[in-house]
């Protein structure tokens, strides 16, 4: 009831909230994330952020990753919202 999914880039994902990767806007960053096992359909959540728009510490299925702030903007995820 009233559940919609919306597209949010990783940098705008609230801390701790899970987003499902759905789309890459940048070819090279997309390639690298796919190589890392972060491909469309995988859940990600942001654990913490380095200060001054620094990198994001993200987790996906118990694996930790770091992704730059600009880079995170190119990765779109879907989240479920009431």
């Amino acid at each position: 009831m009233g559940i919609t999914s919306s597209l949010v880039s990783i940098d705008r994902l609230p801390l701790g909230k899970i987003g499902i990767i759905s789309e890459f806007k940048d070819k090279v960053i997309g390639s690298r994330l796919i190589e890392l096992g972060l491909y469309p359909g995988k859940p990600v959540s942001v654990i913490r952020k380095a200060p001054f728009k620094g990198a994001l510490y993200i987790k996906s299925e118990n694996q930790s990753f770091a992704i730059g702030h600009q880079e995170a903007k190119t990765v779109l995820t879907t989240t479920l919202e009431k």
Partner: protein
Amino acid sequence: MNTNKLQIALLGNPNVGKSSVFNQLTGLRQKVGNFPGVTVDKKVGSTTLRKGQDATVIDFPGTYSLYPTSSDEKVVLNTFANPNSKDYPNVIIYIADITNLERHLLLLTQVQELNIPVVLGLNMSDIAVKKGQQTDVDQLSKKLNVPVISINGRTGEGIELLKKAVLEVTKQPVSTAEAYAFQKNEAEKLVIKEILQSESIDNPYQASLWAHHVDDLSFLKAETKQNINTIRANHDYNDMRFQIDETLQRYNFISPLVQNVVKENHQLNASSLTDKIDKIITHKVFGPIIFFALLLLVFQSIFSWASAPMDWIDGGIANLGEYLKEILPSGWATDLLLDGVLAGLGGVLVFVPQITILFFLISLMEESGYMSRAVYMFDRMMMKFGMSGRSIISLISGGACAIPAVMATRAISNWKERMITIMVTPLISCSARIPVYAILVAFAVPNESVWGIFSLQGLAFMGLYLLGIVATLGAGMIFKLILKSDAPSFMAMELPSYKMPYWKNVALTVSEKVSTFVTEAGKVIIVISIILWAMATYGPGNSIEEAATKAEVELQDMNLDEVASADYIASKELEASYVGILGKTIEPIFEPLGFDWKISIALVTSFAAREVFVGTMATIYSVGSAEDDITPLREKLTSSVNPVTGEHEFTKATAYSLMIFYVFAMQCMATLAVVKRETKGWRWPFIQFAYMSALAYFGALITYNIF
């Protein structure tokens, strides 16, 4: 090398413990070479598969897939897409981390399609057991159609089985290409078909790689590239789409496979320790504090802990020299051996303690997993200056010595970021500049304090260091604008779980760094120091003897003691040598900076090492015997007056101008030798020497005219 010797490629993702396996396979039978045309290191070793059958093992850089996103990965692509490459293997040993199987099988499924026999080694089985993870190895082997061996790179468990499996697969090559051909889109199929028809390759996946990476494949001829580009255009080839499709299809095959063969008990426990550690280590405030505390430790250790062993090496070489002087007949050959070769060797070995300590600490950080956290915290900051998060280690180490610092840039995988780090690191004031700063500051800056606490001389010292740092960062920003990158610079990486460093790997890293420095950069350093020694010892014809005789005549009227007389003769001899002549020849160049021929001579000799400046100045000013005590030289500089003009030879303006000169100048042949070794050519050290010299020259020129 025996050409029919089996060639094995060791392949796998980064952080799978591949180098441990390489070390287990080859022991100390390994060396570092080059991949053609790139600055990526190639580790090659030899292993005995069974009695009488040796094989060459090439350790390829850690790679995620055949879609390269870094210079390292391009090397792998260029080898595996080129059946004629001399590094093309007969067998692949593919190492995967058993605790991370899903992701690590991606590249495996790609290379399997190349029809090269593959053996899969599952590493970290001990950690898997601790995590309560069980893997059905037989099932995995059946599904992937490759022999699978559980190994432990740290203990060497399973390495013999791995070798046996390699021998097996070479006897009866498994055909793998059709095992699970990943459905290709119609357009891609047509492209592959046309490439196979028109070019001299017969493997469909190789053809697909050619189509995908036509611009990245350096071995393709121009007409081949043109042909492929035409074929691509004819079929509307969309590489990004095809890549995602291909990769997702591979995962569609891999994911259920892994879920079937791997049984996990407690998923969450596995990384909770890492999570707890990271809560502090990567904390917004504590993270950087811990990091800088660690860097302080690194700095302290190369700066001061290395000084004792460095003194032993210095002393040992000096003693050896004196001993040899007694037993060898005197003559030019002995002089060459002792003052040229032996002194040069000392100049090489003296860096070994710093290199050892720095790489010991760095490999601890790498092995434990800490380094990637440092990159996470500082990448953003360093990016502004065209560098990577890892560069910060080099810059800080550069405060002790640029040589280990430049060698430490190897871990930076992006070519542009690495080059910038190499180019700017020598601008950080290193410990060899301290004696030079010390004499100049003592001469020019009054020994007073401001506001009762700050020593003026101390502030001047700090100013010189800060100037070096500002120049480093500024140069970084400029190089960032100038240099073209071969791969886009971005950060997206794994943060591996923390683990105990493996000591054998640490030891091997250290010994590899030391031996490459000694054998490769060492050669250049010895040659240059012999040249410098010869230039300072000999002069045209018998000019040296004449100068000495003349000095002795002059001495008769001067009423000096024995030591002072010897100093006086040494000074005149140096003036008459080739270095002295060169110093006088280049004097006009340096005159606008306030440097006379005496300083010019010291500039030439201090190219061996910056601190030599002080010794040469002391010799020229006839106080050579004072050695480490700088007071006599300072007094001489203060009192010496030009006999013709009656003006002071050495003014404060000259001293300030020299300080600025030494902040910027690339006055260190050892660093240039290391830069040559790291960039594999003379081009970069030349550029570095040119830009730093220009900076030094104009910096000093401006300074001289201000004061």
